């Protein structure tokens, strides 16, 4: 059976429960569902908000490519990726990745792979809005993220 694939780029908040339930409800042979939610942080009160800019069109296409790679590599029953753009306050969910599989290791690995690749390949950029009112800096890419992504050998 073909895996159920859902991926969206949106301004609206997402509902984690709804997405997990949709995956868990895919049939009696879903043994494992993982979810990962990335939240906006205040960085110890330093930030009022993070503004997410994205490349419309490419963001969807690139996430689509990463998602296809994931279902090719792991035996997944279903997979959901939602990435938001716009203004995020501390505590707001920015990105959601959820996976369903008969196998726990496949569900975990696919979710980690998706997050590593979203971080380094999906065309989104975060700008800080600081609590002290100073003009925001763009968040710098972390070398750690590149290292995390390089764990997976891919052609994409």
């Amino acid at each position: 059976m073909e895996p159920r694939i859902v991926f969206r780029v949106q301004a609206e908040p997402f509902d984690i429960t709804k997405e997990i339930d949709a995956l868990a409800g895919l049939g009696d042979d879903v043994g494992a569902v993982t979810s990962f939610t990335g939240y906006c942080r205040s960085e110890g009160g330093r930030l009022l908000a993070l503004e997410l800019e994205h490349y419309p069109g490419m963001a969807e296409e690139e996430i689509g490519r990463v998602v296809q790679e994931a279902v090719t590599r792991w035996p997944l029953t279903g997979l959901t990726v939602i990435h938001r753009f716009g203004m995020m306050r501390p505590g707001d969910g920015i990105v959601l990745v959820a996976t369903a599989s008969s196998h726990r290791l496949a569900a975990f690995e696919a979710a980690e792979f998706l997050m590593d690749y979203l971080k380094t390949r999906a065309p989104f950029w975060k700008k800080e809005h600081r609590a002290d009112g100073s003009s925001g800096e763009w968040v710098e890419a972390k070398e750690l993220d590149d290292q995390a992504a390089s764990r997976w050998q891919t052609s994409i």
Partner: protein
Amino acid sequence: MTEIKLIYFALVRERIGLAEERLDVPASVKTVAELAAWLQLRGEEYAYAFENPAIVRAAIDRKHVKPDALIAGAQEIAFFPPMTGG
């Protein structure tokens, strides 16, 4: 000369001061790296946006490419800093 749509994001967009533009690019400009070098000559704001090539990435027709990628046939070329989504 070929007309190409150029799109800029995040810090690159802010430094150039434009989200997108259409430019006639000379036939001698063959790769993404050459295009970036050619853009740098257009003025201070471009020179500033591309001053550190290590932090500028590119996409041709919505696909990530390396600096040595050929731009022939491209409809849309984007320049942006390393991604920080997720």
